[in-house]
């Protein structure tokens, strides 16, 4: 048990503007389940990508069974027995479970045109099921399976090769009790076969049930490796380890006074995503909504912006119930969403800044017959772009050429250009470097002076740092709703990961 299967020493990885990993040591014993914890951006996925060969590392050594190894790409990692199952496994929905498991290896390398013997595949799948008894039907198309069953098929796909290290990247978003049992039983049988598992998760209670040890990453460093079944394992302690010292300096000061309610929700629900969510967002303040993937926070932002109609409850704008039919509708009523995926949802990258900034409010730049007033547009867009601090402020530059932080500022400028009264920010600082982060927080605070700002984020630190009032969603329910002064970072994080303190 004490023997090391895998060891990573002093692993470093830098991205432009971010030191993602800073000399991380990590050791994995044979046949253990080792949980990897950390807040968003702590370096968990980067570490896994270095291990699975998706990223080259800048420094450090990798030892497999005590031997130093180089891993060049994911095929190489697989050949060495290291398999990774990602959050959303890539599979062909119309193929059955066993077809997906043996995809690309259907005929044991007998040549491209060798006949595929389904009976043989089924036999092999049955053998896998004997080894790892799990209650899942491999003969139906995976598109018809639930999320967990799909994940299990993906795990089986990894197991169809000879592997000794399995990485499960946040395998559970929302699990029913039955699904949890199925998954945990699978993990237990993997352990019995001597496979070492790295289990990435936010959810402390699950970790307590499955893991032997855990490692906490923070700011690209390993801050602690602990035995799970020991006195050291208390949720509060783990939360403290994950959060570390507070970085107050990055965040602008909070609001001093509260204005009138602008946007409020009553009993808002979307089937299967969230239910009975209510809040009042006031002018002059930032309302922070913290929720991890699967908490319903992401969907809440989309419902508030009219991208999806709610199945229950109502939204009120200035005390009047509104039914938002589309984003177009929401924008017309003075709302704007800075979306989570800015490249896909926020920008037209092949077009210049000017095009992007005025896109959501073309009324402002067009006159007779809809003809654009170029001079007016140039002036107005330049002013807004300068006010958000895009550098350089050249409005003819194509958005694709800008850094992540600048791109995000362009999206914010686009919102300001609509003169919105309600700004929704979804994951506004994902993939943005530290300097630009502070700039975006300052912008949000400035916007909150005249408008109301709602921040929806899976980053508990930023929700705590930026908001005047905090709401936490867990499995679709608001489990905490309080002014920020009367809560703590630890409380917010714990409510988000386990629903209570």
């Amino acid at each position: 048990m004490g023997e090391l299967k895998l060891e990573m020493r002093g692993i470093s990885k830098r991205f432009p503007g971010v030191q993602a990993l800073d000399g991380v040591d990590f050791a994995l014993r044979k046949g253990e389940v080792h949980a990897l914890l950390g807040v968003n951006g702590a370096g968990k996925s980067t570490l896994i990508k270095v291990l699975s060969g998706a990223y080259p590392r800048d420094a450090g050594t990798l030892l497999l069974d005590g031997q130093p190894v180089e891993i060049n790409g994911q095929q190489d990692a697989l050949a060495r027995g290291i398999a990774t199952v990602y959050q959303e496994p890539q599979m062909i929905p119309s193929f059955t479970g066993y077809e997906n498991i043996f995809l690309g290896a259907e005929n044991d390398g007998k040549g491209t045109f060798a006949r595929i013997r389904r009976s043989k595949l089924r036999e092999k799948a049955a053998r896998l099921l004997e080894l790892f008894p799990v209650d899942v039907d491999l003969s139906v198309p995976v598109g018809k399976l639930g999320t967990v069953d799909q994940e299990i098929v993906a795990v089986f796909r990894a197991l169809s090769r000879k592997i000794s290290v399995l990485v499960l990247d946040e395998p559970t978003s929302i699990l029913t009790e039955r699904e949890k049992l199925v998954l945990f039983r699978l993990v237990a049988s993997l352990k019995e076969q001597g496979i070492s598992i790295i289990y990435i998760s936010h959810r402390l209670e699950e970790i307590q049930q499955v893991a032997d040890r855990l490692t906490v990453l923070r700011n690209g460093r390993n801050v602690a490796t602990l035995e799970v079944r020991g006195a050291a394992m208390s949720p509060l302690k783990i939360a403290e380890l994950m959060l570390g010292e507070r970085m107050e300096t990055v965040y602008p000061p909070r609001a001093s006074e509260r204005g009138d309610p602008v946007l409020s929700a009553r009993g808002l629900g979307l089937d299967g995503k969230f239910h009975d969510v209510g809040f009042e967002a006031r002018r002059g303040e930032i309302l922070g909504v913290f929720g991890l993937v699967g908490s319903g926070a992401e969907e809440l932002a989309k419902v508030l912006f009219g991208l999806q109609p709610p199945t229950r409850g109502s939204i009120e704008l200035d005390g009047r119930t509104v039914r938002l039919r589309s984003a177009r509708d929401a924008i017309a009523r003075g709302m704007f969403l800075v979306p989570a995926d800015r490249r896909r949802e926020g920008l037209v990258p092949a077009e210049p800044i000017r095009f992007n900034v005025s896109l959501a409010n073309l009324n402002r730049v067009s006159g007779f017959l809809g003809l654009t007033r170029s001079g007016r547009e140039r002036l107005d867009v330049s002013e807004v772009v300068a006010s958000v601090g895009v550098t350089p402020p050249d409005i003819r530059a194509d958005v694709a050429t800008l850094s992540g932080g600048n791109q995000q500022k362009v999206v914010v400028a686009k919102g300001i250009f609509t003169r919105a009264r309600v700004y929704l920010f979804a994951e506004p600082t994902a993939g943005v470097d530290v300097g630009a982060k502070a700039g975006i927080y300052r912008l949000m605070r400035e916007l909150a002076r005249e408008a109301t700002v709602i921040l929806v984020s899976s980053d508990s630190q930023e929700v705590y740092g930026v908001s005047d009032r905090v709401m936490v969603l867990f499995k679709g329910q608001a489990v905490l709703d309080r002014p920020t002064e009367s809560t703590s970072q630890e409380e917010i994080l714990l409510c988000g990961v386990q629903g209570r303190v």
Partner: protein
Amino acid sequence: MAGNRGAAVPRVATPVIVFLVVIALVFAAFSLLHGQFLSARNLTNLLRHASIFSIFALGVLFVVVVGHFDLSFYLVCGLAGMTTSWLIAVEVPAPWSVGVGLVVGALFGIANGVAIGRWKLPDMVTTIGTGAVAWGFAWIYSKGSYIWQNARTSGILLLNDGTILRLPVPVVFMLGTYLLALLAVHRSRFGRGFYATGENRVAAVFSGVHVEAFIVAAFTICAVLTSMGAILSNASQGAGSVRVGMVFLLPAYATVFLGSAVFRKATVHGTLVASLFISLMLNGFTLMAVPYYYSDLIVGIVLIVALALSSDTLSRLRESLRRAGRRREEGRETEPVAGPLAGTGGQP
């Protein structure tokens, strides 16, 4: 700012200049190869043909800008043209006949747009279907033969033979449609909507752009412009034919993509310049009695080369080659420094 603009010009202008030179060379070559090429008669013909053809290409441009394809226009415009010719044959006044023909084309455009923009059906397969429907209807009028009755007396031929301010009518139509398109696409809010829809539909929705309306509009504009082209073309032939649009399918797409390769984006002016080039080539080939399959072959090659030049894949390939080259150079510098620090040398 001024310095910036100076730096940006060569990037766009070089291919444009090269292209204009190529057009001049092709023009010179045809003048040398064939004595009749420079005759007034041929030049007027060329201008008329180029005008009609460029109207077809302009229609296709709209559909390409919103990120779709229309494989029905060359048959839909045949139906529109046949409707006009049939109405003239039964003694409906020419303006009414033309109007109804255009409306029939527009209805097919709307149907395409709603099916593709709203119901999200696949564009190519859907338009193959609607095209076949139009083709079928067109045959009902004519049983496949030409309709020429009353053409001479109705005044419809003025669409080809007439002049306005000394300019042949097709040329006036071309100038008019291009001027309107230039304003609509490059100088108005609507153009922003068309491009945003085509370049990033999701972001366009998030920005409040009514993408469905823009897709319907693009298919409708395409159908109406190509129907107008078909009616002009029928007027130049003196009779309506169900096959009128068939010769335009390939060159129209070749034109739009050639224009977008040269101007780095599908634009109205790019389409105009490219359509002049393509119709110049087609006219030259006709004069020199080059069999049609050679000209198809050449235009087909132009289409594929233009597609390759304007696609992202190629520029991505170029970029990755450049990056690989840079990495190789860096690798040479850092290789001797073995050990755990090896990688850090490459960091800026």
